[in-house]
């Protein structure tokens, strides 16, 4: 048995050691990815909301009085 094989065999405990390490990495990778997806979704929503707000606002620069700051709806 070569070195790699004996390493993977974990002295006969491969069926316990490797699943334990797999769980460790899978859970932490999920914990890393989930907030990233949430952030992308949130930024998309925010941009859509800001776009709607500025569409409702009259455009500045057509000779009328300067636009007041956008009304913010939110908490």
């Amino acid at each position, binding site marked *: 048995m070569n070195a790699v094989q004996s*390493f993977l065999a*974990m*002295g*006969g*405990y491969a069926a*316990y*050691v490797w*699943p*334990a*390490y797999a*769980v*460790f990495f899978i*859970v*932490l990778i*999920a*914990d*890393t990815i*989930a*907030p*990233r997806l*949430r*952030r992308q979704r*949130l*930024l998309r929503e*925010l*941009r859509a*909301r*800001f776009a709607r707000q500025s569409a409702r606002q009259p455009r500045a620069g057509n000779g009328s009085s300067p636009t007041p700051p956008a009304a*913010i*709806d*939110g*908490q």
Partner: protein
Amino acid sequence: MANWIPLWLHRLSSPPTFYRFAGTLQPWAMTLALLLGAIALYGGLVLAPADYQQGDAYRIIFIHVPSAWMSMFIYAVMGVASFIALVWRIKLAEVVAMESAPIGAAFTFITLVTGSLWGKPMWGTWWTWDARLTSELVLLFLFLGVIGLYRAFEDRRQGARAAAFLAIIGIINVPIVHFSVNWWNTLHQGSTVNVFGQSKMSWDMLWPLLTMTLATKFYYAASLFRRARTDLLALEGGKDWVRQIAQDEDAR
């Protein structure tokens, strides 16, 4: 106490400042976590010798014990942040407490599953209602309870206050988890690593364990920063600094 410390803390707790601060530190914390984690894995899986009693099965310790420590550490952080949130109503403290809960739940889950995978070959059972195992399971339920209560409210800040209250009550469980192996003589082994004395472990095995512990600490920091930033954007959704960030990220 020097005057600038509270002033600095006060500035840091303002959402846009913390957003930038966390954004600067987050990649460094993640890099350190990955680097230390890789070193610890090499030390633990390759360099460390097999245990004279448990053979190679003991190598689960290098993830089981750091995860267990993190589950208690994160609960303590969540408890302290909850207290600050309830007493001083600081928005950032609410965010830190509520975003710590999922990370803590993740580490508690890892602890229980890896412990189970270690228990089967060593004790002959996946699970037993031993004091250590039961109190750690209660810790998982407390984390899940905090997450659930937080999400049960329409108003997020009201939810955060209710969940913070639960988190503070549940902190009583942390010393129970820690001392359970001393108070009750059960199946789970006693502590191997002792901060204030001689550890019952050879250095070959101890250094990968301590390195992995540091790696999980940095991982927690990185994950918390990432989560807190997103949460601050959501909480401050209508403010100008958030609008600026949303537009900047779109341009990229």
